[in-house]
């Protein structure tokens, strides 16, 4: 079913003729070759494609941690190219949550402190911070492990902490790069369920880069890319 056949909701991201090239040991590589599409709000969106197709590069561009070589990207209504480096950092802090394939928790912080971290960056008051952090840890089922360091947690628990960290500040957009790749299928399924649940509860937009058929089966928007180009966009009814 094509997404163009129904009225699109407000977009969380707009890409227009976006190109991203980089040098790889003297070789010019085009990772994103002129993509133009919109990603609607409050959807479970997947970017799929074979390895090297440009999925991660596209996710980095959407997450404002990389800049396009040409073209224009708007994320949450903001033309990111117009912002300074500090302003982009602040923008990420306020609007975007990240979930990484390798969890990427800060190793010297406990589960609680990892989840609290984004709120500290936003300057949230102590009482509100504590309340939101504890609620978030409870919602991912890790209230009992709040004082555990990452090395004391299983892979699934780490990813739950990462999800809690991404969502605790109530971002408009959550980007997840292969979030189930390092988990067994049972844990992966549980993590997917958790993400579905919090996405519905918090009305956030999730954008995944993934190969995982289990995760893809939950997609509401699917963007298939190959050789840096969008080759198909499928949208499920809201």
């Amino acid at each position: 079913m094509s997404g163009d056949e129904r009225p699109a909701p407000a977009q969380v991201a707009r890409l227009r003729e976006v190109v991203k090239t980089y040098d790889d040991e003297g070789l010019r590589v085009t990772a994103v070759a002129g993509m133009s599409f919109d990603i609607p709000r409050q959807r479970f969106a997947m970017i799929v494609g074979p390895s090297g197709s440009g999925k991660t590069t596209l996710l980095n561009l959407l997450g404002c941690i990389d800049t396009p070589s040409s073209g224009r990207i708007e994320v949450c209504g903001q033309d990111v190219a117009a912002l300074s480096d500090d302003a982009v950092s602040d923008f990420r802090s306020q609007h975007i949550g990240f979930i990484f394939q390798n969890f990427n928790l800060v190793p010297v912080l406990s589960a609680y402190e990892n989840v609290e971290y984004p709120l500290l960056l936003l300057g949230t008051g102590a009482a509100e911070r504590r309340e939101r952090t504890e609620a978030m840890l409870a919602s991912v089922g890790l209230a009992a492990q709040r004082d555990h360091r990452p090395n004391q947690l299983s892979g699934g628990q780490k990813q739950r902490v990462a999800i809690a960290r991404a969502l605790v500040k109530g971002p408009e957009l959550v980007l997840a790069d292969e979030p189930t790749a390092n988990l067994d299928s049972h844990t992966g399924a549980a993590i997917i369920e958790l993400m579905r649940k919090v996405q519905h509860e918090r009305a956030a937009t999730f954008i995944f880069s993934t190969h995982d058929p289990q995760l893809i089966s939950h997609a509401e928007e699917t963007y298939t890319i190959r050789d840096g180009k969008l080759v198909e966009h499928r949208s499920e009814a809201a």
Partner: protein
Amino acid sequence: MSLLLKIAARNILRNGRRSLMTVLAIAVGASAMLLFGEYIAFMILGLQTNMVQRIGHLTVSKRGYFELGSGNPAAYGITGYRDVMKLIEDDPVLKPMLNVVTPNVTLFGIAGNFDVDASKTFFGSGVVPSDRERMRQWNEYRFERTAPAQAPAMSDADPSRGVIGVGLARILGLCRPLELGDCPQAPQGASSASAPSVQDFSELAQRDLPRTAPKRGLPRIDLLAATAGGAPNVVSLYVARAEPQGVKELDDSYVVMPIDLAQQLLYGRGEHKAVGIVLQLRRSEDIPAARARLESLFKAHGLELEVHDFTELQPVYKQIIGMMGAIFSFIAAIMGVIVLFTVVNTMSMSVMERVNEIGTTRALGVRRSGIRRQFVAEGLLLGVLGACAGLLAGAAIAYLVNRAGLTWTPPMQARPVPLRLLASGIQPLVIGVWLGLVALATLAALIPANRAARMKVVDALRHV
């Protein structure tokens, strides 16, 4: 504790062995600088004490004496010096600062011992014996004394008793009467090689000197000098004691005698003057104030006098301080370089190990400056830990050294004194070493911190 310091502290603990080595390197630097600084401080105060005991803090002399007078001290005598001393002692500003105000006479001539046909040019000083003893008790910094206090060799009541250097005593053949050890006999005829004819001198002495009875057990020497009027004059001095001087040239020519005798030698029957008026203050920190007051006092009374402090009269004092300062700076520079490289190395390794973490926190919204602050905070903490540990270790070592009973002979002194590392009044040194090393460790961390802050987020996240 802020998140910044929490992460910094935990990362330091996480890499315990590496952090320990870094902290140890900083601590060794801090200890070395502290101990050497304490040693220098002790040495300088000891040197100052020795000089102030000998020549006081300030010396008042006739204008021009400091530049030209040492060649002819008699010509630069202070007329009416007792009035000048009274003016100084009665001044309400100076009075509370003063410990001793005493006149002195500087002179030189030829000392001879006719019993053994020996003579030698001498450098003499005429002093008030009781004032000399009081000056020798000055001990602002409360140094311990190694040798038990000797009974005064001179007395105000006996103007014919004096003290000479051990070297001069040897040259004049006074080893046996003064019971000096380690005293080789001079070959026949060698002792008066640098002096004028001993025979001429002895004839003059026998003609001019009154026939006094020898003092019980004290050897006598005769002193020949030119009076202010240019006539030769001779006096006898009974040597009560030989005292070693720290400088050989001085030891071989030093004579100290009661001022009355020195004035008699220098001025004969003329008006007795003083070449200098020595002021010993209660506290050395009063030198500038006392000097300024003296100068204004002399100006107000139209006195052609000048004032010099002991550092001007003994330039070697400042030279020793300068040399010690240069050695301290050199050691501090070496320690600083070691700390710098150690911290840079430690923090660089920390950055390399945490590239992914840097990418993650940047993605979460930490600014480049936040990353820089994070690593600088770790350098700061390492510096604080190392500097505190070093200062504590330094204090412990100083405590042990100060109780080990070590002695040493400082420059320009003849007798050994206790070796101490000054443990009080060194707050500026402690604060300086602490701040210097902490600042250095922090600055050293800035180099890898900048490297971390400049990383691209995507590259850092890709790092395995």
